[in-house]
C-alpha cells in the first residue's frame, strides 16, 4: 500500500492551515472522508433522493434498496447474524440512549450496573440518569496507572444483582484496548447483558460480533471515514425484542388506532421517523472503502505510526505519555511538564497540526491522573511518518515558547 496514493482519496488533506500544510492528528474525534464516500452522498442527492420504505415509485425503491443494502454491508462487516439486528441511529450516543432508555423498564431497585473507569461521558451519563430513575446502583471497574482496567476488581463487582455491564472497546482518551471477551464472558456467567461502545475501536479493529457473543455493540460512522450523524446500534435479536422502543413515530409502528399501537418488527421498532438516508448509504460506502484498504493493513500500519511517534515524543524533555498499555490503538495522550495542554494545542494549531486538548469527555480519567487534561494525537492510515516528525518539531517549538 502506498500512503501517498491513499492520501489522494482525501481532498481535505491538501489544504493549508495558518499557511502550513494541514497535519490532521485528531482522528479519534472524527476521521476524514474519502472522495468515494463524498461521491456516494452527492450521487444520492443528485439521482435518487426519496423517502424510503413507503413510496411505490422508482426513486423510493432505489433509495430503499441502497439504504437496506448499506445495512447489510454493515452486518457483514461486523459479522452479525441478521441485518435487522443493525439499528441505524444518529451515532454512538443515540445508540447508548436507546438501550439505557429501554432499560428503565427492565430494572428494579437494587439492581446493579457496571461501568469502567475508562469511559467517555456518553457511556456514563445516560446510565447515571437510568440509575436515578430506577434506583439501580452504578459500580465502577477501576483502572491502574498504565491505563488498564483492574480485572480482579471486576470479578468482585459481579454478582447475581448485576444486570448490565457497559465498557468501551477502546478508550478514547488513552487508546487502551479493553479485554472485552473476558468482560462479556464473565458478565454472561452471572446472567448480565453487556453493551460495548465500539466508537474508538471500529476504525482500527475488525470486530466479529457473533464470535464476541456481545448483546449490544454501538459505533459511529464518522470515526471510520463515514459522515457524521449516522451510527449503529447492534443488538442480538433476543435482546432487541426484549428492549422497549425508544421514540414513537412513523415507521416504527405496525398498526395505530387511538386505543392502541402495535410496534413494527426489528429494525423498524427503533427507527421512528425519516432516517438519515444519505448517511446510512454513505456508512456502507465508508466500510467498502476501508475494506478495500484492508482492516489488517490499517491496524499494522497504524501500530507502526504509534511506535514511531511514541519513541520520538518521549525524547522531548519533560514529556509524559498517559496510557501505556501494551494493547493500544494509535492514540497518544501526553503532557509536557509545567505546561497546560491548552497552551501546547494552541501553538500546534498555529503550526498546522490539529490535535485535541482537554479532558476528552473523560473527566474521571483526568481526575485519576490529577491533571486538567492532555494533548491527544490520534493517527489514521492516511497519516505519514513525515507528519509525525513535523508534529514532534512543533511540540518542541511549543515547549520552548511556553517554558
Amino acid at each position, binding site marked *: 500500500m502506498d500512503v501517498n496514493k491513499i492520501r489522494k482519496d482525501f481532498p481535505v488533506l491538501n489544504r493549508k492551515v*495558518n499557511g502550513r500544510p494541514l497535519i490532521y492528528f485528531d482522528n479519534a474525534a472524527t476521521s476524514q472522508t474519502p472522495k468515494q464516500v463524498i461521491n456516494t452522498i452527492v450521487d444520492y442527492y443528485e439521482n435518487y433522493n426519496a423517502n424510503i420504505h413507503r413510496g411505490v415509485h422508482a426513486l423510493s425503491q432505489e433509495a430503499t434498496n441502497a439504504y437496506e443494502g448499506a445495512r447489510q454491508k454493515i452486518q457483514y462487516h461486523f459479522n452479525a447474524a441478521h441485518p435487522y439486528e443493525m439499528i441505524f441511529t444518529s451515532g454512538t450516543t443515540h445508540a447508548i440512549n436507546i438501550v439505557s432508555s429501554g432499560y428503565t423498564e427492565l430494572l428494579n431497585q437494587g439492581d446493579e450496573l457496571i461501568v469502567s473507569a475508562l469511559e467517555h461521558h456518553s457511556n456514563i451519563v445516560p446510565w447515571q440518569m437510568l440509575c436515578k430513575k430506577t434506583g439501580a446502583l452504578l459500580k465502577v471497574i477501576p483502572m491502574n496507572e498504565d491505563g488498564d482496567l483492574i480485572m480482579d476488581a471486576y470479578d468482585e463487582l459481579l454478582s447475581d444483582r448485576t444486570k448490565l455491564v457497559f465498557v468501551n472497546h477502546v478508550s478514547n482518551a488513552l487508546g487502551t484496548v479493553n479485554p472485552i471477551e473476558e468482560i462479556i464472558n464473565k458478565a454472561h456467567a452471572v446472567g448480565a447483558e453487556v453493551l460495548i461502545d465500539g466508537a474508538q475501536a471500529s476504525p482500527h479493529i475488525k470486530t466479529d460480533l457473533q464470535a464476541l457473543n456481545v448483546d449490544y455493540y454501538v459505533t459511529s460512522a464518522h470515526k471510520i471515514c463515514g459522515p457524521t450523524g449516522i451510527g449503529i446500534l447492534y443488538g442480538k435479536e433476543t435482546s432487541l425484542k426484549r428492549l422497549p422502543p425508544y421514540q414513537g413515530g412513523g415507521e416504527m409502528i405496525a398498526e395505530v388506532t387511538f386505543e392502541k399501537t402495535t410496534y413494527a418488527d426489528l429494525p423498524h421498532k427503533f427507527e421512528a421517523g425519516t432516517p438519515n438516508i444519505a448517511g446510512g448509504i454513505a456508512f456502507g460506502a465508508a466500510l467498502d472503502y476501508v475494506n478495500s484498504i484492508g482492516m489488517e493493513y490499517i491496524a499494522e500500519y497504524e501500530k507502526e505510526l504509534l511506535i514511531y511517534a511514541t519513541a520520538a515524543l518521549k525524547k522531548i524533555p519533560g514529556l509524559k505519555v498517559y496510557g501505556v498499555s501494551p494493547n493500544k490503538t494509535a492514540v497518544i495522550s501526553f503532557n509536557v511538564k509545567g*505546561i*497546560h495542554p*491548552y*497552551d501546547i494545542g*494552541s*501553538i500546534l494549531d*498555529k503550526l498546522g497540526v490539529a490535535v485535541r*486538548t*482537554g479532558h476528552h469527555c473523560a473527566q474521571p480519567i483526568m481526575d485519576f491522573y490529577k491533571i*486538567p*487534561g492532555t494533548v491527544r494525537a490520534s493517527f489514521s492510515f492516511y497519516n505519514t511518518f513525515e507528519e509525525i516528525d513535523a508534529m514532534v518539531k512543533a511540540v518542541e517549538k511549543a515547549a520552548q*515558547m*511556553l517554558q
Partner: protein
Amino acid sequence: METINAAQEEIVEEFSLFDDWMQRYEYMIELGKSLPIIDPEYKTEDNIIKGCQSKVWLHADLEANKLVFTADSDAIITKGIIAILIRVFSHQHPDAILDADTSFIDKIGLKEHLSPTRANGLVSMIKQLKMYAIAFKTQLN
C-alpha cells in the same frame, strides 16, 4: 488613568509591531507575566470563569469608584489574554466598562479565540468583567 479606548489603541499599536503570529504569541506570553495576580483567598471555585478549557480565576475590588481586577490562569496563553483584558478594563468606572466595545480583539489577531469553542473562553471572560461592573454599579447607586 487613560480611557478604555486609549488603552485599547495602545495595545493595538503594540501588536502592530509584530509581523507574525509567533511574535504576537510570545508577546502575549510576556504580558501574562505582568498580570496582577489574584489574592489566594479569592482563588476559589466560585471565582472560576466557566467555559474555558483552562482555569481562569477573576476577582474585582472597588477603589475610589473604580474597578480593580486581579486574575490568574493555569494556562500561560490564557494568562496573556486575561492580562490584556485587565489592562484595558481595570481602574475604570463600572459605566465605562459596561459601555466599552471590544473590537480591538480582532485587531490584535486574537480573533481565533472568539471562535466557537475557544471563544467561550474569551467571551466568558469579557462577560464576567462586565458582570462585575453591573454588580458594583448597583452598589454605587
